[in-house]
């Protein structure tokens, strides 16, 4: 993990560290082993592209002196996105063969140019298929590469906002740091982590303790969803202090589906939800 300043860092891990972490969590969640195996493959694909793709040089001179969202975002070749998406669809198709036809239709959306390569690609798509989620997985290597280049150039400046300072996307999970207990939110696209003060809604900034709360199995549990009754948003949180080790948030997210369903059944929605 790149730690540049106290307030801004990157949550990406090496492939070995990610796969080790997946194995660690698989022991505690045997019912999710198919999901973990699928994600091991997807993370491997993402990592390979992260290490091999090259962003155009003008991306690196983005205005990195003032934290984001940055001015110019990476210029991404749509053909490269189709390549990575094809591999991801292949992995998904092998995990769930009955979905192959649906995956082919999704891939065609990109081949036809119906979905672009910007950070919010596919956010306007409506339908049952997880097009937005697949766009995030396919675009991640490009935006993560961009973040890794830009973050080291940013001076210590506290970005206390609900969206990512690098690519402007939403956070999808947060963590309480293992040593400080401070809250960091992680971007769903580029995996940048930024500090966001606790006891404040990460989305709307509400700090009225009567409106804020969290849902969990118990107060000391490593997993919770923070809730806000003002904006009705929720944020999944992993407490590294309770977990006993540094977390890989994009793996932890898979283990918190039950909590997410509980939050939704109580009327809350994720940050990425519009309106």
């Amino acid at each position: 993990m790149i730690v540049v300043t106290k307030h801004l860092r990157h949550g990406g891990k090496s492939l070995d560290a990610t796969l080790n972490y997946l194995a660690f969590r698989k022991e505690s969640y045997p019912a999710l082993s198919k999901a973990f195996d699928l994600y091991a493959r997807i993370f491997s694909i993402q990592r390979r592209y992260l290490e091999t793709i090259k962003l155009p040089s003008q991306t690196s001179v983005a205005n990195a002196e003032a934290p984001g969202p940055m001015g110019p975002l990476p210029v991404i070749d749509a053909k490269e996105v189709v390549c990575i998406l094809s591999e991801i669809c292949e992995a998904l198709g092998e995990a769930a063969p009955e979905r192959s036809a649906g995956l082919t239709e999704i891939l065609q959306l990109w081949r036809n140019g119906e979905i672009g390569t910007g950070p919010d690609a596919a956010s306007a798509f409506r339908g049952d298929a997880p097009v937005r989620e697949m766009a995030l997985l396919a675009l991640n290597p490009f935006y993560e590469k961009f973040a890794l280049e830009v973050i080291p150039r940013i001076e210590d400046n506290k970005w206390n906002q609900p969206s990512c300072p690098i690519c402007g996307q939403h956070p999808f999970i947060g963590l309480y740091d293992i040593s400080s207990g401070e809250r960091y939110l992680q971007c769903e696209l580029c995996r940048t982590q930024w500090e966001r003060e606790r006891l404040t809604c990460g989305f709307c900034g509400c700090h009225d303790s009567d409106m804020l709360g969290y849902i969990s199995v118990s107060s000391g549990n490593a997993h919770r969803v923070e809730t806000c009754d003002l904006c009705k948003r929720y944020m999944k949180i992993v407490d590294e202090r309770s977990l006993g080790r540094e977390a890989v948030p994009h793996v932890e997210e898979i283990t918190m589906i039950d909590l997410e369903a509980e939050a939704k059944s109580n009327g809350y929605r994720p940050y990425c939800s519009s309106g």
Partner: protein
Amino acid sequence: MALTRRDFLKGAGGATVGAGLLDWVFDASEVQAGTGTLFSKYKETTTVCPYCAVGCGIICHTQDGKLVNAEGDPAHPVNEGALCSKGSALFQIAENERRLTKVKYRAAGSDKWEEKSWDWALPRIAGLIKETRDATFAKTDKKGNLVNRTEGIAFLGGAALDNEECYLYTKLARSLGIAYLEHQARI
């Protein structure tokens, strides 16, 4: 409460990556909220440690108004989440089965504690203060200076008192004629 997959994904971008993708890929017909798991709601409130004058920040976790956890507040500029051994044990101030909930009185020369009511205890305390004050009150000192003080009572303040309480207690002590007036912070 059971949610169907459609309910779960309802709303634009209605799920985060893992949940939305996995549910579609593995064609789960239902996503059960709290399957085999009971979830509860909690609140977090900030407070200040009541012990010494450092004033460390603390986050209290409550469930239905009952304290269930306490931790240092990482955002507090004084302690940045750290707590000393007393602050770390603060939970027991609120929740401890060994806390006294009744007045305990041990008479002079006795070897046992008796349970008493507040209606008995408070008038007794007030009466003893008055008796002691009257018995030890000095209008003048040895040189004949007017002092109007009691030499039989000392009053000690503590860090758990705030400024306003200290002010009122000082007024009370001085009005009784107490000269031995001290505070834990000075000792």
